[in-house]
């Protein structure tokens, strides 16, 4: 049973990507893996106070990602009786999605075109364009 990896980010774009994934998975009898990457870099700078609270904040971020973001979407997919799993993690969104796709031998990555703020993606390239350049499997970019 092949696997589609869907990148979600809490935006309307992420939900559109999920819609497309559900349609495809229903037709081809595939599984879905919903991934929410919390943008984080090991080389960012922080204050001592933030460092002292970092572990707690991380747990909070993951808990919110699971309960507020992933859970409702997982239920939505399950209602269509498509097998699905959810994953929330920290990291660089594009790189993380690409490496998870490889790890799970995903057949395709499905992401939305917009998600990042317009100015940021203009200068640094959005997650979708980074993925099309670097992913090891086909990438479907949903408008």
């Amino acid at each position, binding site marked *: 049973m092949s696997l589609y990896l869907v990148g979600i980010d809490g935006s309307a774009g992420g939900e559109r990507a999920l819609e497309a994934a559900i349609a495809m998975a229903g037709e081809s009898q595939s599984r879905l893996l919903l991934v929410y990457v*919390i943008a*984080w870099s*090991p*080389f*960012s*700078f*922080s*204050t*001592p*106070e*933030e*460092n*002292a*609270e*970092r*572990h*707690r904040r*991380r*747990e909070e*971020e*993951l808990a919110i990602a699971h309960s507020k973001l992933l859970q409702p979407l997982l239920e939505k997919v399950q209602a269509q009786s498509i097998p699905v799993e959810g994953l929330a*993690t*920290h*990291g660089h969104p594009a790189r993380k999605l690409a490496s998870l796709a490889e790890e799970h031998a995903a057949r395709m990555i499905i992401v939305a075109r917009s998600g990042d703020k317009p100015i940021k993606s203009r200068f640094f390239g959005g997650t979708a364009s980074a993925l099309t350049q670097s992913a090891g499997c086909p990438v479907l970019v949903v408008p």
Partner: protein
Amino acid sequence: MISLRIALAFCATFIASSAHATLDEVIDRAISPLSDALSAAIFYEIPLPMVDQGVPFIVAWLVIAAVVFTLYFGFINLRAMRHSFGLIRGRYTPPDAVGEVTHFQALATALSGTVGLGNIAGVAIAVSLGGPGATFWMILAGLLSMSTKFAECTLGVKYRNEYADGTVSGGPMYYLSKGIAEQHPRLKPLGKILAVVFAVFCIGGAIGAGTMFQTNQAFSQLLNVTGGEASPLNGFGWLFGLGIAFLVGMVIIGGIKSIARVTAKVVPTMAIVYVVAGLTIILLNIDQVPAAVGAILDGAFRPEGVAGGLIGVIILGFRRAAFSNEAGVGSAAIAHSAVRTDRPVTEGLVALYEPLIDTVVICTITALVIIITGSLVGAGDIEGVALTSRAFESAFSWFPYVLLVAVLLFAFSTTIAWSYYGLKSWTYLVGEGKTKELIFKFSILPAIVVGASINLTSVMDFADGMILAMALPNLIGVYLLAPVVKKELQSYWADYKSGRLQTYD
């Protein structure tokens, strides 16, 4: 609010009592006797046979520790450099630790507390008083003190407190009390006393070096750029201090994280700009570098016209190195303790890079620029950051403005970092609690105003005195606990050498 009111009343009394003097002069006159008394105690000079100049007790204390730890840990400062770099790069961090505080972040946070005016102003002070040779002793002190930093940061992680809600508190207070009680049960009361003494000095250091010295030098550069003595801002240090106090208050009391976050991002950028500008000046004058290096080496062993001769120049170099990298002082152990690792020794190894970057790299660049540009000649009574500014200006006329921004940001970030160190010591003494934290945060603010108002020498002495006094209780503890560090290091190093450490590239 109470302390703010007291501070205002304090200022008002002085304004009323001295119609003739400016407010700056009044504050200066009130603080100077206090700082004089303190530095007399901390810098008590141990007389040496044969020479006139004695060795200030605290400088000897720090240097002996640096030498002892370098030998005791088998030159860990040199042999672990490559491996430490791998740790900072994240080569040994398992992927499931994403989102936690990394080695790099702990190092960067600690550096933003130490890289600052000590590097820019401190070197200038050492070179203007001790000649080029002082640089040599600064570099040597920087290299040796890496071992001290290694030991204290390892202990900071090993004996930190991890609370149920996932936050951590660490630093000398904790290893002095918990570590000594665990390793030497009979010395438990001593550990407790050392921890309390450390916390008291740390609060003093936060006020002296962490806030007063910072705003003082930031204002001095502001004056320098706007016309020196003739500047319209001259005499308005207190007003500048109020402005900075307001911004710091917004961050530490108002919890305006955005300001802190912006500073945390801009400070490293400024440090890089500073280093690149320094390197550019050095490269443009590459033909003069051998002569400058010659002057440093020559001046190190045969200083001319320096008070105290050879001993005098050694003391100057070591003293300014200690003030710039804070090794042995214990402050960095607070910042490093937040890292997420189950091998405390790894954070100690990462901390090796702190004195290396801070003292060896940045200070050497500053000193070379000052020497190469010939800014020392006829410097007269130009001191501190003004001398550095003059040196960079001779190559890039616009540099004093960049330096002004850098100095303001360094001063700001160091103040934020130190107010956190001070706060941790305060809560160690009086217990955790919102009101208790507020009392401390409000008492930091008047110190900022005072720092901007008084002259360099009295601030410098007070700052030096308080910050270096922290090394007394801290190093006693590190000596007592050094065997713990050694045991951890030996087992870790054996794992590393035999390839048992897993790498993730």
